[in-house]
């Protein structure tokens, strides 16, 4: 069973989103990192880049597969996790903590409320 903390929201494309002051922190879910296997490279967006809900913001490369990750909210990229350049495996090891991907300064915070709850995400992945 995957770790699905209740203090964050989720997307159908397997990002988690946590409100952190003005910004929203985004990462890959435990379920998704487990499905992908060992992440060997993370391609991050540029700080300041425009984010439109549903747009690809970067990519994750595992040994056997590659997946894009997407903006869960409209806004602009406020920060990216540069630690992942040197240590992409953090996405596997601590997906909800040191393995975060990027943050967004949202232009419409109400979009956060329409994201999936832990319970809904659990149903989405069939657990």
């Amino acid at each position, binding site marked *: 069973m995957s770790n699905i903390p209740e203090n964050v929201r989720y997307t159908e494309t397997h990002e988690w989103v946590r409100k952190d002051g003005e910004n929203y922190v985004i990462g890959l879910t435990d379920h998704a990192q487990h499905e992908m*296997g*060992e992440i*060997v*490279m993370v*391609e991050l967006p540029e700080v300041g880049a425009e984010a439109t809900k549903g747009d*690809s913001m970067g990519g994750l*490369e595992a*040994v*056997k597969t590659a997946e894009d990750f997407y903006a869960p909210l409209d806004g602009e990229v406020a920060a990216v996790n540069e630690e992942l350049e040197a240590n992409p495996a953090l996405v596997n090891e601590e997906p909800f903590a040191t393995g975060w991907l990027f943050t967004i300064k949202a232009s419409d915070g109400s979009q956060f409320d329409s994201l999936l709850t832990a319970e809904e995400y659990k149903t989405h992945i069939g657990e």
Partner: protein
Amino acid sequence: MDKRTPLYEKHVALGATIQSFAGYLMPIKYGTIKKEHMAVRDSVGVFDLTHMGEFRVTGPDSTAFLDKLLTNDASVDNGKAYYSTMCYPDGGIVDDLIVYRIGDQEYLMVVNAANLDKDWAWVQSHLQGFDVKVSNESNETALVAIQGPRAQEVCSKLTDYDLDSIGYYEHTTGKFAGVDALIARTGYTGEDGFEIYIKYPDAETVWDAVVQSGEEFGIIPIGLAARDTLRLEVGYPLYGNDIDHSTTPIEAKLGWVVKLKTDKPFIAREVLEQQKAEKPARYLVGMKVTGKGFPRHGTPLYSGDRKIGIVTSGSIAPALGQAVCLGYVERGFQKRGSELEAEVRGKRIPMKIVKIPFYTEGSRK
């Protein structure tokens, strides 16, 4: 309904990630791919490769039959093995395979699991005119591979046979872990190692004996994912990725398994002779990724604005710590040291053509 190998329960008990592959439920990985990969490079690992297909060819015309069907020369000594391609009349590849010569009139062909039905039909369709019998032993033959620099130390405890006397691509039949086996010094990893062919009911005995014997060397089970990174790191082509019906052995740099120097007739001989003389329009090359990114199967390759090829395999090479690829480029662009670019998600990634194998420290004898 997917088939289970006789070692399926072992894989489940070991916590393997199991997926359907070529009609079998196979272990993809047990822990992490990197750890499994490095165990084979540094010490030793054990693989269940029971999904591979085995056809036994017997009868007075065995050599002539294989010489017709396969591009490589079947006239090897008893106890030797050879790698070959099997081609369609247009030069495209039906499959690549290893053939063990068991006796004057007996060979064992080992084919890719994903091609089993197609290969069997192909072999059957060429029997006419040859005094041979071919039997499909795939559903009764298990294969346990022990690969890595410590493989011989693991195996020597399990057989009375002097393994030093079995050279690379040689084999013998004898007792292994107390059961009847074909013991071969072959593999797909670039390391020294053995492949042990046994009957289904003996698979567990052999697996358990190997695991126990390998304990002092830190042996671990290796899944199909690491098998793929191991073969790519030494530049071995994989059928379905790097070679298929649309590629010829000449294009794939497998000319060394096409017996053009003999006078033996074989399927596609004229086509391949002509292609070799005229030079093919494209070649398979090895590439190192010099920029940041991971080109994969199907990624286009460019020289400037011109699309000049395509990636057929791409992954991280764990022992090298960087991404490597196999792919086809147009003739004229295959020179070692040439720089080109792959396009991934609209971004250009610099690549350089390098010598295969990428990894050159293997213990292969």
